[in-house]
């Protein structure tokens, strides 16, 4: 999954919280839209920005590290699902070092519990820091 592949899917409002696995992705995003990168401070804020962009007619994509999933549980459960607002996520699957290991194990079940359908994509390992 690359930035160009995401763009080719029609996403025109890409926002999120950085992950080292997304270093190249975010550099490509910044290069593509100079001066328009949004330096978001927390994952649920990124989702809320995406919701606003959806209302404005955009097709948003939210990127985040799996360690940030806990921050979006409430906004997914109490906003996206009851209001039926469709938002796509790009979630990186950090497994190591140790602080990521448990979240790695529960990432897919957690997405499923939240009602988010997921597919796994391979990443270019050279972009991983």
């Amino acid at each position, binding site marked *: 999954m690359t930035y160009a592949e995401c763009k080719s899917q029609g996403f025109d*409002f890409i926002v999120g919280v950085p992950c080292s696995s997304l270093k190249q992705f975010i550099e490509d995003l910044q290069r593509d839209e100079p001066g328009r990168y*949004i*330096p*978001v*401070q*927390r994952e*649920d*804020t990124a*989702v*809320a*920005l*995406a*919701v*606003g*962009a*959806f*209302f*404005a*007619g*955009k097709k*948003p994509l939210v990127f985040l590290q799996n360690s940030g999933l806990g921050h979006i549980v*409430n*906004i997914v*459960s*109490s*906003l996206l699902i*009851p*209001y*039926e*607002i469709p938002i796509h996520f790009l979630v990186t699957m950090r497994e190591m070092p140790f602080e990521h290991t448990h979240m790695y194990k529960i990432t897919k079940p957690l997405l499923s519990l939240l009602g988010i359908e997921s597919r796994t994509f391979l990443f270019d390992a050279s972009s991983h820091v």
Partner: protein
Amino acid sequence: MTRLQAVRSVLDTLTDELLIVTTGFLSRDVFHLRDRKENFYMCGSMGNAYPIGMGIALGSPERTITVLSGDGAALMSLGSLVLGNSLKLPNLWHIIIDNKKYASTGGQPTCSDGIDFTQFHNTRVIHVDHDEPASPRITLDPVEIARRFRFCIR
């Protein structure tokens, strides 16, 4: 000033601007005082009304957006207000009704005396010293709230 007087004073200034209202009593108050299709009642996801407004302001720069928050909600996502200070969107306004408590959950105190919200971009604070009882719950279906709101932006 009371909470309902504060809400009325905000609604009296509105023409065709989009209004995002935070969860709890304030959404219920606005729905019962002046429902309009340009209102988005964000029931739940406390703290996220302001960044929803930022997303609309970025996606629809020709529209004017007002976000109505309480002090508890503004404090819950204080970082999003800092992002607002960074982006400085000219078409986004934030009105914070500060009663220094979580009125919807029984009036427990907040820590809003620890911050000056007017340091944030395009932000106005209305201080409230009395809360009326809750307005009735919103009777609109959430899917309909989102559908009609989105339709009136495009």
